Every structure is written in C-alpha cells, then in structure tokens.
C-alpha cells in the first residue's frame, strides 16, 4: 500500500497505513512523550501524556492513526503545557518521594518531569493513603507510586497469559488490584514475568535489588528519556 504523508511540526513524515501517529513518529526518530504505552503491548490511550494537536484538536498520539495530509503539533507551548500539567497531576495524586525511591534514575515519570521541565507542582499534594503488598517473596507492590498506566494489567494478560492484575473502583479510588482473594503471594505471578518488568515507576518492583546500580549509571542519569528514539534517527 502507498505511504501516507503528513506533517509533524512542519516536517514531512511518511508512514504506513494502519500506523499510529506515535509509531510513525518513532520510525522517523521524533520523540512524543508517553507513559502508558509500552512497546509490545496494546496501546491504552489512558495517560494522555502523548497528547498532540491533530489539525488543531487534542488527540492521544499512541492511539490516533495517521491520515494523509494531517498536521501534527508535537512541540508548541500549548501542547507542552498540557503534558506538563498531566505529569504534575500524576505527582500530586500519588506519594512520589523521588529522593529515596529505589526507582529514581530509572523512573519514567521522573524522567518525563525532567525532560518536560516540571518544577515544583502548582497543584496541591493530595497525600492519599495507599497500601503496600509485600506478601510475595520476590516482588512487591507499592501503590503509593502507582500511576494507573495499566502496563502490568496488559502485560500479565497478553504476554504472561496470567491475568494477575486488574483495575478496581473508580475515580480517585481507582487502583490496581491483584486477581486473588487477598494478596500478591496468592497469585501465580513470577518474578520473571513481563508484568514486573514493564512498570514505569516504582510501584511494582523486584525485591532486594534496589540501589544496586550506582548513581551515574542509571538509565536516565546521562541521557534524557526519549533520546533513544531521537538517536535512532541520527544513526540511520
């Protein structure tokens, strides 16, 4: 099938039919910030960090298919501001203490905040009461840091074939629950499951490995999030 031509920030992009805006942008080495999307999992379209303006309308780049002739705004101040506000809201809605969190330096939420220039939040902290499930011998859940991206839900279902996690309740009470009567230890999850690997924040973690990588050698210590996509473009 013929290529589809469209513009991101006034640059001509060629994509394949059926691609999302994010997929076409990735292939072209253009980074669109994202959180709930994860390569290899079905796009979820829930976090809205990937918001772009398509012909002037806000859309989620991870779910929106490309179309001939559309213009995509990925960098205007307005678009950036929406993304920053979303990241800020995620911070104040949970209990994110980056300064001692073991995910620091490897955390996508933190890395997004740095990349987008989020400083002290203007929204009030909610300090919600959230719980920890440390019942499993090798894995623990700290819901204080969960951003409800749903990656673990999808990975467990689609890749691990286990269905360990699910969302329960709504609105401010929404949370990731485990598919058992009570605790993570009662599920069939294993430490090698994809579900454990995909958490972007410090909510679903392998036990006893925290801080083993020294500061300076962590994922985002030396390069901002998204640079792997941008660099792909430079090398090709």
């Amino acid at each position, binding site marked *: 099938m013929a290529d589809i031509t469209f513009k991101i920030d006034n640059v001509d992009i060629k994509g394949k039919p059926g691609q999302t805006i994010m997929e076409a942008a990735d292939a072209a080495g253009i980074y669109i910030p994202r959180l709930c999307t994860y390569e290899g999992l079905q796009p979820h379209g829930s976090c809205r960090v990937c918001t772009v303006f398509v012909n002037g309308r806000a859309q989620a780049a991870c779910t929106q298919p490309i179309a001939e002739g559309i213009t995509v705004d990925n960098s205007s101040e307005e678009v950036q501001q929406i993304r920053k506000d979303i990241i800020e809201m995620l911070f104040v809605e949970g209990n994110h203490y980056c300064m001692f969190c073991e995910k620091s330096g490897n955390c996508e939420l933190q890395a997004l905040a740095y990349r987008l220039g989020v400083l002290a939040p203007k929204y009030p902290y909610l300090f919600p009461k959230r719980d920890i499930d*440390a019942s499993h011998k090798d894995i623990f859940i700290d819901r204080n840091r969960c951003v409800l991206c749903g990656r673990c839900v999808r990975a467990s279902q689609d890749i691990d074939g286990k269905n360990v996690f699910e969302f329960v309740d709504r609105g401010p009470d929404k949370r990731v629950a485990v598919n058992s009567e009570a605790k993570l230890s009662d599920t069939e999850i294993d430490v090698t499951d994809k579900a454990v690997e995909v958490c972007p924040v410090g909510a679903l973690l392998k*036990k006893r490995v925290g801080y083993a990588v020294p*500061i300076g050698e962590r994922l985002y210590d030396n390069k901002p999030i998204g640079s792997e996509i941008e660099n792909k473009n430079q090398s090709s």
Partner: protein
Amino acid sequence: MKKIVIEPVTRVEGHGKVTIQLDDNNKVTQSRLHIVEFRGFERFILGRPYWEVPVLVQRLCGICPVSHHLAAAKAMDVIVGADKLTPTAEKMRRLMHYGQMLQSHALHFFHLCSPDLLFGFDADPAIRNVIGVIEKHPDLAVQGVMLRKYGQELIKATAGKKIHGTGAIPGGINKNLSIEERDNFLKDIEQILEWSRGALKIAKDYTIDNLDKIASFGSFDSNHLGIVRKDGAMDFYDGGVRAIDKDGNKIFDHLDNQKYHHYIAEEVKSWSYMKFPFIREIGHENGWYRVGPLARVNVCDYIDTPEAEAARKEFMAVTDNKPNNITMAYHWARMIEMLHSVEVIKSLLNDDDLQGNDLVVSGERRNEGVGIIEAPRGTLFHHYQVNDNDQITMANLIVSTTSNNEPMNQAVKKVAEERISGKPEITEPLMNEVEVAIRAYDPCLSCATHALGKMPLKFELLDNDGHIIQTESRN
C-alpha cells in the same frame, strides 16, 4: 511550651529553647535546654522494605546524612546475614565515612566555632561570626571551604552524590573507586593534610592559652561513651561500645552491639521531645554520658595514625592522662579527629582494594539488626526489626545529639549558675555563653540555621512559682 511539629522527613533543625528557673533568692534551681526532635520518623518507616532504609534515613539530617546512611546499612548487613563485608565494600564505606567526618568537622570548626576561638567568646556578636572570620582571616575561611569540599567530593565518589547518595546497600556497596577518581584525590591530599594540621594548631593553642578561663566554663564531670576497635584504637566506622567514668575506669567494654539495649536505656521526660539515654547499670540519675569528639578521644587507648596519635598524647597530658571533662576541649578533640580522618583517607586512597570488583555478600537472613557508628557528633545507634515479607516492623534510633542532651543541659546549667548570681536577668553575656557552651557539642539544632553565628535560641527566665519574668530571643 511552644509546640513545633516537624514533618517526618524534614531535616533535624529548628529552635532550641532555654528555660532557667530561680528560687526566691534568685538562685538558679533548674535550667533546661529544649530541642525539637524527630520522633515521627521511626513511625514513618514502618512497612517500608528494608533495603530502602539506608537511603530513606538520610532525610533525617542535612549535615551528616552519611552517618545515618551507613548506620542503617550496617544494621541491614546484619539482616541479610553479611557478617563480613568484602574488603572493597568495607573500605569504600570507610572512605565515605571519613570523608564525611572531614567535611562535617571542617564545617563546624571554620564556620561555626572558629569565631568563638579567634575573637574570644565574649567578643561582640557583631564581629564574632563567620563574616568576621572572612574579613579578618580570609585564608582560614577559604581553607574551611576547601576542606569541606574535599570531604564532600569523597562522599560523591563513594555514594554517588554529595548529599543523599545510595552507595551503601545491604551487604556491601554499589561501586568501587576508579583509578581516575583516586588520582584526583591523591593529588590534593598533602594540601588537605597541611590545612588540617593548621586547624588543629589553632584549636590546641586556643585551649592551652585560655585554659584558666575555659577549664571550668560549662564544664562538669561525666561518663564518656564511644565505639573503639577491638584493640582499643579509635575507629569511627566499626567497633565495640566502650563506656568509661569521669576518672577513666571502664564501665563496660565491647559488649554485644546487637544487644545495646541491654546496657543502654532511654528515659522520656515530659518537658522535652528528646529522649535521655543512660547507662543501665548506673541508672538514669547518673548514668548519662557524653559522646562525640571529646568522648572518643577519652575512651580510645590510642589512635592508629601517627600525627593524630601525637596530638592525642598532647591532649591527654593536659589532664594527666585522665579523661578530659572540659566542655571547650571538644574543639581541640574535634580537630585531632579531623587530622586523623585525613590520615586515614590518605592511607585508604593508597589501598588498591578500593579498585576491587567484589562488592556485595549475603548470608543467613535475620529479622533483627543493629548498626552502630561514630557520627561526627557521636555514637549513633540504628536498630530495626524486619518481618518475613522484608518490611520494617520496628525502628529505634539513638542519635548523637540525644546522647549529648543531658550533657548540654549540664553545660547550660553551669553557665546559668555562674552568670545569674542574685541578679534575675537574662543578659547578653549570659546568652552568648550559653550559645558557646552548646555549640561545643555541635548539636544538630545548630547545624543548618545559624550560619551567621547566632544560634536560634529562645530564653525564658522563670520565678519560683513558674511565672515568666523575662523572655529573650536570639535569631
């Protein structure tokens, strides 16, 4: 009493309050130093995974986070059954710790206490501050900054960051020292040694020249406590707890660190947020003890680096080799320790174990662990219990300033008794002297808030019925 609530994760700082109570003849019947402390913290970490604790507890203090980091890591070594660390891990931690001792002592000496020593503690507070030092002794002010920086760079190279790093992990360390990092430190070490010798000389000369005046200033007999190496040598990172009385007789020595609560108890008093630790076998009345530089120089049998050992001998000679109980001698002792730290740092840097790659060990998992370390301000105890799910279920910390709580109260009392004799008045000299006496102990409350030489202290003078006669504030 004004109630100040400290959020669990803020630094330990704030205002101290001094209350002095008089009888009908205007004689001091009671004087107390009230310090805000972080009681909430021990609750905050309940439920957290144990490997998070060495990083988390650093939020306790903005000046000596490394001490909390390492004390917690040592407790977690016990939890993970790492009874002997690899040489690389232990030496990296030591380098971090002695680097921190250097930076903390340098900060205290040059920026907080040198004004007292250089200008005399009865000098006008308008010049008796760090700005005065910068104007009168610019070379010293610069040395202070450079010494501190050197220590901070050591912390960064071992912990990853100058403050709140992650280097020590349960059972070891997460990095070694590269040759390049090492060489960077080695090229400046002689200069650092030289400056440390200079600072020691200032502290020593001050103490000896003013001995008449300071021998009794805020001074009192007390027990002393600190950890020492098995052979009795000074050791800031590891050893057994030793306590001696005012004459140097051993009260206990090298009891099991894991059972510290069998020989040290803590008393809660209604008027203070801080606990009052004491030696069990003596009881709370007389069992309190001093910690920190003075106590450490008193309790050790020797120092295993030559220059600091020579300095220790000179120090001990002043009191005929008996324990030194002079409050103002803390400054001299602190500078002996700073020189010792630099000597240790130099020998560590020349040890190629620091370039090893064997970083972490583990053994049989336990549910309880105690880590004890000598922080810049004195002995620091961290005690944790961990459940089978790896979560903290109990935490108890005895921080140095808590141990020095009663000694600081004693020092304040001495000063108050001497200054208020029949005259029911809080005077400028009284406030100065209280401040100087407290500062000798380098308490945490002084750490972050009085860069300009004024400790944030409130004073209240009470009559026999407890009515306030006068209040004064310094800040």
